[in-house]
């Protein structure tokens, strides 16, 4: 990890003014990737997983993109939306990166999209799931390799109804990501004929769930649908199990509830069902190879954030090979990126006109510490992007 620091410092000091870089020939210079991910605060683990996945994909292409070396400029987004525009501007105008990869937090994504629109910088979102990024706010130079809140929660609506649940309570943090996720579930569940009897919103980022769990117990619904991520997910699932609700009221959610935290759940997650576009136990050989390589490189099992980083790297590899390393011609580059098709560890994956992944969504259940795939909740699901005028 530390040689990238040295490279980063040298590169940024050089580009920060010691030398006026004229229009050098496109090819010898390394491709500069600006990583705007959280390396502090509650989302630190996600930032690190995405970074690891990205670097793994590029290392597997012997560290090259379109025949050129790669240089990483890592900037801590601190998941702080108010700093997003200036950080993005620093990467684009300050460090002159060729691609910006990030963020994790939706609020930071909004700030980045603002600068992406003004600067035209090619941005690949490896996580933030706000629907607008590839809908109302879509733009040619913005791609996403992760998901939209809707894409993961919508399939669970149908699954919940098929499992016989009719009255469901939803609970999530009172912030945009949570509301969007729960809305996707409600849309599908009520389309099937089910009813969301209560929508509980918890102040962000509180993890004091006891009073809400008691409220759920008093309503006594058929099932509970929830969206929490990171530490919030671990707390909720453990409290839910400790309150003995897991046996009487099944807990459903989108994958982020338990993703990357199965170890921390230590048994409290058994039987919890979630829908997500990835599971570490997917049995296709790309995933087996990926899990092995990731385990060997970083000493721990990958999760969806790692695969999203990995696919971002694979996408760059494929696109830059197509334009054989020419990052000057933006149109051609965007065309190449849009036409990327991956045999990803998560399964076949291509991009819609609004540059959002068309991918499978799997139904998973935690069985002895692993997300076992119990079914495909949605096949090659495309996200609604009617408000997108590219």
């Amino acid at each position, binding site marked *: 990890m530390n040689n990238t*620091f040295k490279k*980063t*410092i040298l590169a*940024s*000091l050089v*580009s*920060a*003014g010691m*030398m*006026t*870089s004229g229009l050098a020939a496109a090819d010898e210079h390394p491709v500069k990737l600006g990583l705007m991910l959280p*390396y*502090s605060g509650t989302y630190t683990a996600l930032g690190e997983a995405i970074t690891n996945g990205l670097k793994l994909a590029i290392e597997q292409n012997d560290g090259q993109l379109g025949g050129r070396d790669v240089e990483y400029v*890592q*900037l*801590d987004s601190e998941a*702080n*939306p*108010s*700093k*997003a*525009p*200036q950080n993005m*501007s*620093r990467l*684009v*105008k*300050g460090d*002159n990166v060729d691609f910006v990869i990030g963020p994790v937090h*939706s*609020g930071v*994504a*909004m*700030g980045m999209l*603002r*600068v992406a629109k*003004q600067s035209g910088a090619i941005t690949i979102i490896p996580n933030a799931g*706000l629907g607008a990024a590839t809908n109302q706010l879509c733009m040619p130079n913005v791609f996403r390799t992760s998901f939209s809140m809707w894409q993961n929660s919508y399939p669970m609506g149908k699954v919940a109804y098929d499992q016989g649940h009719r009255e469901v309570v939803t609970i999530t943090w*009172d*912030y*945009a*990501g949570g*509301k969007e996720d729960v809305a996707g579930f409600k849309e599908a569940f009520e389309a099937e004929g089910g009813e969301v009897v209560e929508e509980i*919103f918890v*102040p*962000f980022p509180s993890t004091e769930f006891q009073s809400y769990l008691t409220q759920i117990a008093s309503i006594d619904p058929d099932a509970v649908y929830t969206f929490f991520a990171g530490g919030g997910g671990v707390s909720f699932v453990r409290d839910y199990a400790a309150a003995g609700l897991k046996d009487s009221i099944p807990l459903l959610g989108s994958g982020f509830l338990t993703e990357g935290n199965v170890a921390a759940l230590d048994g409290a997650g058994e039987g919890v069902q979630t829908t997500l576009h990835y599971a570490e136990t997917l049995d296709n050989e790309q995933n087996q190879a990926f899990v092995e390589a990731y385990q060997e490189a970083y000493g721990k099992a990958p999760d969806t954030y790692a695969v999203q980083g990995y696919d971002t790297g694979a996408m760059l590899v494929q696109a830059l090979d197509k334009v054989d390393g020419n990052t000057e011609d933006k149109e051609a580059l965007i065309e190449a990126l849009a036409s990327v098709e991956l045999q990803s560890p998560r399964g076949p994956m291509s991009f819609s006109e609004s540059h959002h992944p068309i991918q499978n969504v799997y139904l998973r259940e935690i069985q002895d510490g692993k997300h076992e795939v119990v079914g495909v909740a949605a096949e090659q699901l495309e996200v609604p992007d009617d408000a997108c005028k590219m």
Partner: protein
Amino acid sequence: MLHRYPKRVAFIMLALLAIVAFYPLWGPAVFGDQSEFILEKLTLMVILALFAMSLDLLVGIVGLVSLGHALFFGLGAYTLALASPDFSPASLWWMLPLVMLVAAVAALVVGVLVIRTKGIFFIMTTLAFGQMLYYLVSTSPFTGGTDGVFIMFRPSVTLGETPLLDMSDPHTFFYLCLVLLVIGFLFLRWLTRSYYGQVLDGIHDNEHRMQALGYATHGYKLIAFVISGVLAAIAGMLAAMQYGFANPAQLGWHTSGEVLMMLILGGMGTIFGPILGAFAYEILLFVYEHLTMHWPILMGLTIIVAVLVLPRGIAGLIIAPPWQRKKTPAVEDEVAASPSVRSTTQHKEG
């Protein structure tokens, strides 16, 4: 005299102003293709300088430590965001007064409730109001929630139909911010040297005595609170204008803490100090971010060292440089025995 400073201060500040103002001339030569980004960074520093200066009126001059000043900064940003039409630029002619009016009303309402408290209670009530507005904006439906809201077009400055200033040009926007900073500075400098400023000094020094002389101290403090809030809101509006983005994080207590850090770095109660503090803070942040991923440790240690070793901040160094300090010992003890300290030792009284 409390707010009369040696000649060298004026000389240094004018020199800095010249360097910053003529950046567009020497910038490209030095920074090459990065000069546009550095201009953006400079604009941000100017905006944060205005924000820090507005807080200095409260903390440095009147001695009211607010831990919720980001409330007005964010209010300025959101007033711009919510009052701007979606598909055309608003006009700055009515937007700036609107932002100032909204901030003045909010500062009056919050001020009336907060001014009566002192010491830790003032810190806590300002923090509470800041958090209240933060959650209000994060959860209410029409402010875009925690994702924030976009401002599609920067407000324009037109005379009838002919555009006077092209706001989309970064240089023009930079000079707008710089002009507002200079106006703000001159206004506060004049205010602190006026009789009203003398009253504020008296209140900072010994509010009880001022009341015994017959001064309605709450009234004077409230006016200072409103002025400080309005200036902070202008800075908030400019910050939202720069990137066209308003977000609840601009209201959070971390932002209030950051601006306080700019104050300690720059030197409080001097009006020009916080300007230096804002520049110093952003430059340090820029350097630390490039040095290591663990930059918060460096920033945290910088603040701790500033508090322990350099309580008068950069301004203190300029006003009374160490090699002169032996001649004017009074400067040092002034901080240690600052009047509100007396109130802390007897914070149980009354």
